[in-house]
């Protein structure tokens, strides 16, 4: 299958929502419409929402943005969503998507690509590792917030 990566269009959203719903078990149309409003402008240099198309269908997507001076670190490219339709996985689509967004980030002048992943999602961790990513010098922390008195 020949795959092209391009900027998302409004009429791709139903496919994006379906791919995400199949991976996460939850359809979130309102969320994806709002991601589209914020990240779907093809002229923006700092926000990117790309889709991979094969045989005339959307088969995967990637979303990310440039984040400035978070936690004192210079601007970096941050990927916060990547998904490939289950029936076309392991054919290089994920790599193409990551390559494409990395190219956009490079063009925006950033030198690092970052992401954060669930520790038990071995599949996606293996994918990012295979692309050459290593542990970043950060540690994500969390706590339960007590209900307000």
């Amino acid at each position, binding site marked *: 299958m020949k795959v092209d990566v391009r900027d998302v269009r409004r009429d791709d959203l139903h496919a994006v929502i379906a791919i995400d719903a199949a991976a996460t078990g939850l359809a979130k149309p309102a969320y994806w419409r709002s991601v589209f409003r914020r990240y779907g402008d093809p002229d923006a240099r700092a926000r990117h929402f790309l889709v991979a198309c094969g045989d005339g269908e959307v088969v995967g997507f990637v979303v990310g943005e440039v984040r400035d001076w978070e936690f004192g670190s210079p601007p970096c490219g941050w990927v916060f969503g990547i998904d490939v339709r289950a029936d076309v996985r392991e054919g290089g689509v994920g790599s193409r998507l990551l390559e494409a967004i990395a190219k956009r980030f490079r063009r925006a002048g950033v030198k690092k690509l970052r992401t954060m992943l669930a520790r038990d999602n071995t599949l996606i*961790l293996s994918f990012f*590792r295979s692309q*050459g990513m290593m*542990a970043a010098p950060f540690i994500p922390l969390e706590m339960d917030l007590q209900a307000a008195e």
Partner: protein
Amino acid sequence: MKLQMNTTLALYSVAEFAANPGRHLSTAEIAARHGVSAHHLAKVLSELARAGILESVRGVGGGYRFVGNARRLTLMDVIERFEAIDGGPAKTRVPATDIGRALAAIESEIDEMAKATFRSITLATLLRLIERQSRHASAA
């Protein structure tokens, strides 16, 4: 966290074999390269053969060759043939006190990170890392 000697030897050996797929290497060859006793290494290699990662080659010189799938075999698959990362017996030694429980929670945070790391790095990814590092080193 420090891996045991046999586990480290197993990782070295698997990386060595996976980097030379199809080629058979003798125990003595690998032992000499890493400065360990061939007798010691032989036990590690036979365990890797039992795991289906290596296959023993009969005939002159003997030795083993890689028969695993480097794109799917992870460092964890190799490690867990030799030791348990989650501390095993050490955990059960932690006294059931408030301090013991708090320290065990911290230790388990570290173990979970280590396990996620070893589970997500395949031999193919390791070989690419080795290649990148040697490119950097020769460029420097």
